[in-house]
């Protein structure tokens, strides 16, 4: 049984010129432990697909299930709880909370989930990502690469079943990007997480088990290009 399943999922948005379909109906399944890349040009619908799969947004048609739970049946609040329990995120722009330190940023998801050992876990993770000397730094005191490593630590603290990453190395130079990439795959292996990653970077995509290609809102079958 697939961990993530999408069937006939589409997404329309209302514009002044009328309804616009930004994602044509598509179906896919991602198994537990799989590492999947979603690639495509800008505006092809990658991020839209990611937002739907992660339950940040709801599809206009079709159903998505995560671990046998139908997202359409959940309200915003229940989806937040589901995300808190099963999903981690990494973003292109890091999205650390500026007024919290590195340690506090990492602790946040665990604390929101009511964990009693958030600080201990966060320190361990920061150690793992090589930032044990940066725990009290604020995001604006860290370099881009360091910020992303904090974000990775934050993503893993809840030991999520699924990790969604949106262009995780998009804002980093190639060397730093490479390091972050390595770290991401290493932790992913260690925790046995299912990884769904949106990327422009072909090399990064190649390291994944499977590549889903999107073009103009359509999912291309292998060999379509």
């Amino acid at each position, binding site marked *: 049984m697939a961990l993530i399943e999408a069937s006939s999922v589409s997404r329309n948005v209302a514009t002044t010129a009328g309804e616009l379909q930004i994602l044509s109906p598509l179906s896919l399944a991602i198994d537990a432990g799989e590492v999947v890349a979603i690639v495509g040009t800008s505006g092809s619908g990658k991020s839209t697909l990611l937002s739907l799969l992660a339950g940040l947004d709801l599809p206009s048609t079709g159903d998505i299930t995560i671990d046998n739970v139908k997202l359409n049946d959940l309200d915003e609040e229940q989806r937040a709880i589901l995300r808190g329990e099963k999903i981690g995120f990494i973003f292109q722009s890091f*999205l650390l909370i500026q007024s919290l330190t590195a340690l506090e940023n990492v602790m946040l998801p665990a604390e929101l989930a009511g964990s009693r050992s958030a600080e201990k876990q966060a320190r361990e993770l920061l150690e793992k990502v090589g930032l044990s000397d940066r725990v009290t730094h604020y995001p604006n005191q860290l370099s*881009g690469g360091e910020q992303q490593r904090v974000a990775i630590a934050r993503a893993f603290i809840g030991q999520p079943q699924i990790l969604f990453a949106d262009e995780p190395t998009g804002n980093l130079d190639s060397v730093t990007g490479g390091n972050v990439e390595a770290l991401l795959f290493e932790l992913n292996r260690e925790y046995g997480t299912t990884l769904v990653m949106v990327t422009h970077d072909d090399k990064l995509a190649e390291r994944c088990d499977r590549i889903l290609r999107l073009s103009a809102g359509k999912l291309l079958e292998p060999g379509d290009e």
Partner: protein
Amino acid sequence: MSDRAAEAKAGKQINWPKISWRLLQHELRRGELTIMAAAVALAVCAVLSLSVFSERLQLGLMERSAEFLAADRILRSRGDEVPTEWLQRAQEENVASARRVTFNSMAFANDELALVDVKAVSDGYPLRGHLETAEEPFAQGEVAEGLPGPGETWVQGSLFQQLDLAIGDTLEVGESEFTVTRVLSREPDAGFSVFADSPTVLIHFDELAATGLIQPGSRVNYNYLFAGAPADLQRFEAWLLPQLDDVSQRWRNVQDGDSPLSAALERAERFMLLASLLGVVLAATAVAVAAQRYAQRNFDAVAVMKTLGGRKSQVAKIFTLHLLLLTSASIVLGLILGIVLQAVVVGWVSGALGYELPATGSGPYVLAIATGLLCALMFSLYPLLRLLKVPPLRVLRRDLTASGLSRWLHWIISGGTIFLLMVIYSGSAMLSLALFAGGVLAMVLLLSISRLFIRASRQAGMQAGSSWRLAMAGLQRRAKENSMQMLSFSVAVMLLLLVLALRHELLEDWRGQLPDNAPNYFVVNVASQQAEPMQAMFDRENLPATAMYPIVPGRLTAINGTPVRDAVSKEERDDSEYREGFGRELQLTWQADLPEENTLREGQWFAEGETGVSVESQVADRIGVSIGDELTFLIGADEFSVPVTNIRNVDWNTMQPNFYMVFSPNLIENMPATYIASFHLPEERRPELYNLFREFPQASLIDVDDILQQVRDVINHVSLAVTFVMVLVIGAGALVLVAQVQASLEEREQELVILRTLGARAALLTRSITYEFVVLGALAGVIATIAMELSIFMLQTQVFNMEPSIHWRFWILGPLVGAGVVALLGWSVCWRLLRQQTGNLIRQLA
């Protein structure tokens, strides 16, 4: 078992207070919440210090004013004594009492005879203020201990003149003989009756019966003086008032009547109320602007929390607690500042006045805390609601903000809160409604004008150099945001100008009423053949004096042929201390010209040869006469009728002889008259007084210096208070401007960074931003000045009962201050931004 499973078993921990506290700590440290905290603290500090100060001032003034009465309350009974049970009750309630009986009588000494005002007082008198006596007439008095002893009397200086008295002489009053032991130089309750030409003869109450002057049917005023703590007085009052018959028995307190202070006090109180309300509205605006910024800055944080599994309720709790903590801290800070500030100001004012202001209760503290809570919570409610509505999807789509919240909600919440504050402050829903409706109308008008201005300025800017062009383009592009900003700039500048102009008006008005050389003596009973020599003496001695007004006593007997029974006699107004002892007669005069300081309300002044009478406006209203009515007067044995030619407004606060009725000269010119005038004698020339008036033995002098001094005292108080209020309001206004400039620059940050990255020199950018703010500020200044003039016109005519006036200085000052302050603030924030490395800026924006 994984950590998570173990925890699930152990139960969850509530972590949101920790997260909230942490966020607050860091935001405070980073200075992000400074403006919001400062605005709340300022509102609390302003309200607390203002209300404590004005309450203490009020209590102080009441105490001082009580000296005018020689008591806190007076029960006046005409013709009869009141039950002794009433005095016992006062004693039980810890209210001190004393008796004062006054009546007119003849006094004899040295074979001369004079009409005097006998005043018999019991031990304890005066309950408030003090008596002063001197060794010789018109000399500087000293505070007297006790009262005249058995067989003794203290008499006023003018009786020394009239009866050629000396200390130690014997004065006969009724069947008793008294030894004159002191000159009575000051009685706290002497009142201010220019025509009370009979000098006071003060004796002890125990001596009264022996004079045999009190007979059934005698015209005697029995006064019972009471003084005590406010609460005790209130209890006594509540018990006593229902038992008064209200015809022959009257109850008086300090606020009653037209004391020379009441007008000044009332205006000051209204000003303080208005100013503190404006201050709070300004602070609330600053809170709203700052809260909006705060919410916007936290959009990402909320989106991230929601994405990471934070439930809506958790996020709501985190930010609500955050806000509550911030509010509480700011309120505490405001309270501390307020306590310190009012202590400093009270100390300073007490020092200037020479007496301690009394302490106040807890009322102002409650009011201040309530204001702080209302300001902070209500004005940040909408930004907070918006913040909580931010969708998690914002983590991927940065353009998403809160949706589904109407901006109307914002206006309703803020408008409702301002209205609520107005009602709390003014205590009147009607007044608040009027102010509020006016305010809303002004806002709509201001908003439309600002948009119009911005559109027009674009045209002008296109013809200018590159910094200007950039500035004008920026102004136009953000027309909507800018007109909102301009609105708040305008409102802030307008309120500042308003408070400034009103303060100026009030102070000028008070000063105008009582110039330094305002008359401090009245001279009455001047025989007609002495009027000219006296005028000559004033000129010779360089004493500024009014004209000599003739006085003919007479009565109004009929209006349009219908007889009146004392309808116009001043005695009718026996609720006024100042007319005490005045007979049934009116003091009539004639003048060829409209008296100085009088203005015509209706009709024309007498033409040459015209016959008629000019009536004072309040009297005209009271007795219901208008132009053309025939008034019949009885003077001596002559009865005659004259038409009302005009109606005059008289400012009773001026130290001038003022008259209810002024005839045209041709009517009573030949009747026997005495003359009256007022003049100013500098303090240091006081000892000359006796000699100056030696040649006019019939004339009586009335010293009003004390009253003047007291009025000046009060006005000095109030001027200080008014200035203090103004400073606070300016502080609040400045906060709004800072908050607004900061917020508007944040909106521009991205554009600035792009321009900077593209190689725009810092000087160009700084100039263009500064110019943009110069234009915004100047336009706001112009709008603010117009709005200020309109509001001040309304306030002067509707609230303060003053003459409206135009304030030309502010037409220059308004735009200059607006442009200067707004541009300076804009420049400073922009400069800070541009000093940073471009790379740094880009990273921050990302």
